[in-house]
C-alpha cells in the first residue's frame, strides 16, 4: 500500500500551493491592523500594536453596516424565494416527468444555464428602467432569484423523482390536498438537497456582482461587493481601512462556509458523481 502515499515531491508542491493560497488572507489581516506609516515601510512590515481604529473607521467610512444590511436583506430574501420556487417547480416537473410540456420546460431551464449574462444585460436594464425597478432592493431580489432558479430546479428534479409515489398516495386516500402533501411530505424529505441548494445560493447571492453593478448604482442600496468595488477603486484609497473593511466582511461568510462545507461539496459535485 506504500504506493498510495503522497510522494515527497507532490507533498512539497502542495505545501507551496497552500502557502500561496493562504497568503492573501495573511496580508488582509496584516494590512487591517497596521497604521498608514507602518504600511509605507512595506507590505510585509509588522505593526507595533494592533490598530483597532482601522476597524472603527472602516465601519464609518466604508459604510459597512449599511451595505451589510443590504446584503443580508437581499441574500435572505433571494435564497428563500429561490428555494421555494425551485422546490415547487421541481415537484411538478419530477412528478409529471412523462409529460412533454414539463419536459420541455426542464430543457428550457437547462439551456438557460448556458446563457451568458451579457445577453440579457441590455434588455434587463431597459425593462427595469421602464418599470422603475432600477436601484431597488426588490428589483435586485427578483432578478437575482430569477437567474438562479434554473440551476436550483434542475438540481432538485432528480431528488423529487427518487421519492416513492406511495407516500403521497397514502396521504391522498386520507383526503390530503396537493399543497398539504407537498409541504408535509415532499418538502421535509427534500431537506438534504434544499440545504445544499440554499448553501450554494447563499454564497452565490452574497458575492453577486453582475446583476448588482447593473441594477444597484445608488449609494443607499449597494451590497458589500458593490461597496468594495467603489471603496477599493476610489482614487487614493485608504488601504488600511479598506482591508479592515474586507476582513470584517470576510469573517461571516468564511465562518458560514466552514460550517456548511459539507453542503457546498455535495452541491458542487452533484453532477460529477452522476456522470
Amino acid at each position, binding site marked *: 500500500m506504500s*504506493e498510495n502515499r*503522497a510522494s515527497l515531491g507532490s507533498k512539497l508542491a*502542495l505545501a507551496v*500551493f497552500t502557502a500561496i493560497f*493562504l497568503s*492573501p*488572507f495573511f*496580508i*488582509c489581516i496584516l*494590512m487591517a491592523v497596521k497604521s498608514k506609516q507602518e504600511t509605507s515601510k*512595506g*507590505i510585509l512590515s509588522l505593526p507595533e500594536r494592533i490598530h483597532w481604529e482601522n476597524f472603527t473607521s472602516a465601519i464609518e467610512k466604508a459604510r459597512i453596516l449599511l451595505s451589510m444590511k443590504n446584503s443580508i436583506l437581499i441574500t435572505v430574501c433571494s435564497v428563500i*424565494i429561490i428555494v421555494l*420556487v425551485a422546490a415547487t*417547480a421541481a415537484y*411538478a*416537473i419530477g412528478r*409529471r416527468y412523462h409529460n412533454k410540456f414539463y419536459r420541455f*420546460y426542464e430543457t*428550457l*431551464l437547462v439551456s*438557460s444555464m448556458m*446563457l*451568458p*449574462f*451579457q*445577453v*440579457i*444585460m*441590455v*434588455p434587463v*436594464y*431597459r*425593462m427595469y428602467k421602464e418599470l422603475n425597478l432600477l436601484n431597488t432592493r426588490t428589483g435586485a431580489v*427578483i*432578478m437575482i432569484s*430569477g437567474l438562479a*432558479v434554473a440551476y436550483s430546479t434542475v438540481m432538485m428534479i432528480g431528488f423529487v423523482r427518487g421519492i416513492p409515489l406511495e407516500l403521497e398516495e397514502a396521504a391522498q386516500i386520507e383526503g390530503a390536498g*396537493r399543497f398539504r402533501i407537498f409541504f408535509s411530505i415532499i418538502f421535509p424529505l427534500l431537506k438534504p438537497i434544499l440545504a445544499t441548494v440554499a448553501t450554494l445560493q447563499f*454564497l452565490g447571492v*452574497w458575492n453577486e*456582482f*453582475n446583476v448588482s*453593478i447593473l441594477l444597484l448604482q445608488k449609494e443607499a442600496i449597494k451590497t*458589500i*461587493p458593490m461597496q*468594495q*468595488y467603489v471603496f*477599493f*477603486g476610489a482614487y487614493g484609497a485608504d488601504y488600511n481601512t479598506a482591508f479592515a473593511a*474586507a476582513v470584517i466582511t*470576510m469573517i461571516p461568510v468564511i465562518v458560514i462556509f*466552514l460550517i456548511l*462545507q459539507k453542503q*457546498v461539496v455535495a452541491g*458542487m*459535485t452533484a453532477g*460529477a*458523481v452522476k*456522470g
Partner: protein
Amino acid sequence: MEQGTSVFPVRWLFYGKDIMKRLKRELSYVVFLIPSLLLFGFCVVYPFLSGIQLAFTDWDGISRTYNFVGADNFTKLLSDKNVLQPIKTTAIYGLTVTALNNVLALFIATTLSKKLKGAAFFKTTFFIPLAISAVLASFVWKYIDSNLISILLGNSLLGKRETVLIGIILISLWNNLGSNIMIYMAGIAGISRDYEEASMIDGANGRQRFFNITVPMLMPSFTICITLTLTASLREFGTVLAATGGGPAGSSQTVAILIYDYMFKYSRAGYAQAISLVFMVFLMVIGLLLTKFFRSKEVEA
C-alpha cells in the same frame, strides 16, 4: 351499461367526469409550476426575446425611443477592429485558465486523495477562496501585485500590457480552483479500489496507474470541469472589471467587458446587444462541441 338507443350516450357523462378529474389533477401540478414560470419568464425568457429585437436597433441605453436599423449592427460587427482584440484576449484567457485550472486541480485532488497528514486542512485552504467575491479577490491581489510582486519581480503583472493576463489568470485560479478540486476528488473517490488493487498485482507503477486507470475513469469529471471552466472563463467579467477594468490600454478587455463598455461608456446598447448575441452563439457551439467530444471518450464503469 350500453345505452345505444339514447341520443345522448350516458357513458359520455362518465368520460366527462373523468376528464374533469384528470384536468383537476393536472391543474394541481401546474399550480406548483406557476411561480417558476412567472419568475423565469420575467427574468430570462422575456429579456432574451426582447434582446433579439434590441439587437436590430440603435438604442443608446438612455433615451426612451430607438430606431430599427435592420442588420446594420451585425454587418458593422464584421468590420469592427475594436471587437477583434477582445475576442483574441478572451480566447487566450479562456484556454489558458481552463488548461491551468484543470491540471492544477487534478494534481491537487489526486494528492489530497492519497494518505496524507493534514489533508482536511489543505482541502479547506483550497476551498475557502470560493467564499470570496471576485471583486474582493481582485482588489486584494491587485494590492499584492503592486506592492509585493512588483518588488519581487521588478514589474507589476497587472500594470503591463504583456503580463496583465497572467495576473488576471492567477487571480481567477486562486478564486475558483476549489470547485474543480472538489469535483475531481469526488470522481477519484468514486473509482473502485478493485481496479487499483488489480493493477498493483499486475505490477503497474504509480504513473501507469494514473494514466491507465485514474484518467479514463475520470472522464465524466473531465467533461464537467473542462466545460464549466471554459464557459465560465470565456464570459469572465467581475474579476477583470475589478482588477484592471480592461486596461492597460485595453489589453485585458474581454468580450464581456467590451459589451459592458459599449452599453455604459459609449452608449451603444443596440450594438452591444448584437455583439452579445453573436457571443452567445459562439459559446453555445463551443459548449456543445466539448460535451460531445468528452461524452464520446467516456468509458462505462
